[in-house]
């Protein structure tokens, strides 16, 4: 049997400034009918570019410079635009990362669904509509009869992602490219989308390329896995082989990331004064309360992880602590003394003690200032150091965050990588010599290996300087790695809190349980087992709603 898709020596270049730089340096790929290939790699590995190239498509400013992409005998690289248009949507379909952005806001879901079959002359409009409803049903969308007649903004993210999968299936293609379809979703929603995609691909015996950076997800979905690194192929193997016995060092290091975990610290002495204490805080945006009576303590030298899905109020809690959003009821204590609620009323000393590190290092650093200015400003502002003394202190701080001082001090943020920028954010916080640092999703925009480096750095700094961290995250693997205590939040309320060890041992609060069990594991059978244990009707949204 000849392969459905055969990529040979694919090289792709991207234009930046005025030169063409290589993005993909020769990738080979074979995919048989009904087979699912997982394509994994960190950001910049070129996995999306390969996925699109498998459709003979490149984005603006990108071109295929060499190699062939043969789909069912047709070389998509040299084929004319008309020939490619005949295949796209009909025999090769695409499921994009963000369904909310990839559905046209001006048309109803079903109109977009029927567009491809009607335009390609696969079926008439009426049949296609009936088929859409059937597909919606198979993908377990609520109200399949009616949901297609809604506009994209009227449908939730997880449902849209399933509707997009249905749309890709409209012409019963031979190949579907899934480009990170669950990355933008919460863990509990992710499960149902994964299950739906896996079922439908199996039912129709469709070949697929599943692109993701999440190893555990790919383990559930793919028959075989290909690992990419900076445009080069690292290795390819059958899923189970790849998981149990990776050959290359890079792959091994990817697998090992998940095992980082700090030693457990002894329990906090009773009666010790917490560095920061949140006391019965209720806060509101306008008239709507978004936090309801939350309380927790943070002690010296310890990390409190605040966990929850988007909209749970964890970032709002941080805004209350910093004073950006003064609480409506309740207050914040620093070393047992109440802080003014509004940051503008706090003095320099109080402001200095609580620092913040942000999720997006890109927006957290002023792009027009050099690293020396960014870190030097708090040194000057709080410590009053100027001239050579200030420079010396900045160099010390850079050394502290493991960046070569002389090399980085005069650079602009745009000349640094994502991980380096995040380190600069840490140095800026350290420059104030605080007791307490809020880390707001600091690793979620980073690749796993880089994120691990940041976590290790934070842990070392905590041990050296006795810092207290409030670690806001949605990722339970990060919690496992760094937390001493855990606070679980949902809908603006604290659902459960306690030391990490207790939190990861049953019995749990049902929501914590759902959250914990929804985190994909590396075991390829994990999803199957989970679905069996939960029952078909009790996954994702449905499970949350039942609480």
């Amino acid at each position, binding site marked *: 049997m000849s392969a459905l898709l055969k990529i040979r020596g694919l090289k792709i270049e991207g*234009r930046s*400034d*005025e030169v063409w730089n290589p993005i993909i340096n020769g990738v080979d790929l074979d995919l048989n009918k009904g087979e699912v290939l997982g394509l994994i790699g960190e950001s910049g590995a070129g996995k999306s570019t390969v996925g699109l190239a498998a459709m003979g498509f490149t984005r*603006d*400013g990108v071109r295929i410079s060499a190699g062939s992409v043969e789909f069912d005998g047709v070389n998509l690289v040299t084929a*004319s*635009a008309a020939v490619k248009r005949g295949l796209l949507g009909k025999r090769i379909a695409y499921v994009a990362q963000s369904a909310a952005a990839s559905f046209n806001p001006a048309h109803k879901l079903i109109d977009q669904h029927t567009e491809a079959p009607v335009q390609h002359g696969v079926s008439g409009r009426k049949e296609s509509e009936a088929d859409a409803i059937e597909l919606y049903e198979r993908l377990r969308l609520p109200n399949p009869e009616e949901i297609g007649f809604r506009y994209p903004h009227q449908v939730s993210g997880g449902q849209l992602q399933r509707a997009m999968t249905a749309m890709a299936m409209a012409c019963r293609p031979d190949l579907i490219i899934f480009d990170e379809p669950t990355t933008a979703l919460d863990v509990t929603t992710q499960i149902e989308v994964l299950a739906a995609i896996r079922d439908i691909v199996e039912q129709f015996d469709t070949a697929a390329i599943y692109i993701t950076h999440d190893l555990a997800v790919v383990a559930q979905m793919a028959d075989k896995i290909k690992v990419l690194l900076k445009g080069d192929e690292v290795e390819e193997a059958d899923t189970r082989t790849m998981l149990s016995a990776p050959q290359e060092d890079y792959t091994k290091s990817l697998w090992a990331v998940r095992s980082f975990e700090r030693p457990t610290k002894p329990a906090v002495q009773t009666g010790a004064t917490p560095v920061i204490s949140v006391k019965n805080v209720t806060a509101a945006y306008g008239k709507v309360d978004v936090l309801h009576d939350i309380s927790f303590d943070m002690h010296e030298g310890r990390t409190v992880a605040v966990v929850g899905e988007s909209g749970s109020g964890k970032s709002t809690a941080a805004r209350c602590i*910093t*004073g*950006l959003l003064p609480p409506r009821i309740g207050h914040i204590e620093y070393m047992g003394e109440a802080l003014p609620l509004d*940051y503008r009323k*706090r003095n*320099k000393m109080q*402001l200095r003690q609580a620092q*913040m590190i*942000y999720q*997006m290092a890109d*927006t*957290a*650093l*002023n*792009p*027009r*200032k050099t690293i020396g200015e960014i870190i030097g*400003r*708090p040194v000057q*502002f*709080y410590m009053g150091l100027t001239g050579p003394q200030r420079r010396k202190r900045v160099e010390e701080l850079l050394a502290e965050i493991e960046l070569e001082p002389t090399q980085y001090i005069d650079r602009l943020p745009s000349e640094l990588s994502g991980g380096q920028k995040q380190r600069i954010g840490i140095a*800026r916080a350290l420059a*104030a010599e605080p007791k307490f640092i809020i880390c707001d999703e600091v690793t979620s925009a980073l690749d796993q290996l880089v994120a691990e480096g940041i976590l290790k750095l934070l842990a070392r700094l905590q041990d050296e300087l006795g810092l207290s961290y409030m670690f806001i995250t949605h990722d339970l693997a990060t919690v496992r790695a760094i937390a001493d205590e855990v606070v679980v939040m949902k809908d603006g309320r604290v659902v459960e809190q306690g030391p990490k060890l207790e939190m990861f041992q049953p019995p749990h609060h049902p929501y914590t349980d759902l959250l914990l069990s929804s985190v994909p594991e590396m075991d390829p059978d994990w999803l199957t087992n989970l679905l069996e244990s939960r029952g078909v009707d009790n996954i994702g949204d449905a499970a949350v709603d039942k609480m």
Partner: protein
Amino acid sequence: MSLLIWIVALVIAVTAGGWLFRFVGQTATGNAPYFRDMTVSVAAGYVGSFLLLAWIAYTYVSGQQADPAEKNKYFFFFIAIHGFVAFSIMAYFFRVLGTKFGTEGSKKMFRQMPLTASFGIVIIFAYAFVALFAGQIAVSSIVIVGIIGLAISEILRRIGGDKPAATSAAAFAFILIGMIIMYFVGPIAPYGQEEILGAANVVPGGDPALGGNPDFPLGTDQIGRDILSRLIYGAQNTVGIAFATTCLAFLLGGSLGFLAATLGGWLDQLLSRAVDALMAIPSLIFALLLMTIASVWSNQIGIPLTYFMIVIIAVIDATRVFRLARAVGSSIVVMDYIEAAKLRGEGLTYLIFREILPNATAPLLAEFGLRFCFVFLTIASLSFLGVGIQPPLADWGTMVRDLAQFINFAAFAPQVAVTPLLAAGAIALLTVAVNFVVDWMLHKSSGLKE
């Protein structure tokens, strides 16, 4: 009706030519993708543009070879062609020069610069030169420019850092050196702007046999003023006043806009609503209304109307600047690094000058260009309508109005009929140049890929 038939015939001919061009191309290259995928309309476009160029070249050559009387009719056509070619060559070499000298960053900028932008910059330089040195330079103005330069770079050093201060100091030093040289060289304009030189209605071209005069290469107007000198002084007056007005508008609108964006709250609400109300009146109409009132004031208290005009247009335009500055400021204020600076306890001046302003320079600079064009056109329109820049200052809007009657001579003396268009063309050329540069800057800052 015959015109319509001609147009239709031309379109059909060009389309047919396009089809033929593509066919020949396909056959000659063995159906290369470039010709294979070319639509007929694109091919027709090539043919049409070629025909246009050929027609211009033909007119140029036949004009050059005609007898002197006939040739003189093409006087301004030749100037336009020569000027265009000369400036294009200068623009090309300017870009080449830029890629060879300067820092890595500036070299890269020049390499990516389209020729239109380079053309625009060269034109702007030419205008600035003419405007600065139109008349005799006074020693006092050299001293004043020197003091202003020092003051500005000192202010920039205090609030904006060393880099902008050095840049502004260099620019002022450059102007100062030029002024000192031109002090000895003398004015560019051969005559004074209001000087009446006796001979009225001298025909452009400078050939006495054809009613011209070599002393007045562009001729004189109805009351005998040298058109060339008035054009040169017009650059100083019209461009200078527009520039001053734009600066004033930016100072006013920009500072209020950033203040509103940074502080928010009631101040923002108040200013924004006031600006909304002022912007609900079309700007030229509002300017005309206020100018009417100002003309009464100006009579009574004896301040020239031109000063009123500067303030009025600056205020009207400041509303637009305010909108932009506020929008740009608001988009920067939500950034995490501003939040970090606020939480550090930084004051308002630091936030605006050190954190926000450096990130707003690109859009503000582009807006400055656009606003300048707008102000420039508004002033020209007001002057054209007779309520703008007042005599004795020569200015382009007024010149167009004064010379408008000449247009009726077009049938037998096209070179005379074009004279009212000179000043209008001078306005258009400068705004085109600025727009070319702004277009490039906007394109660059939007980060669009080619």
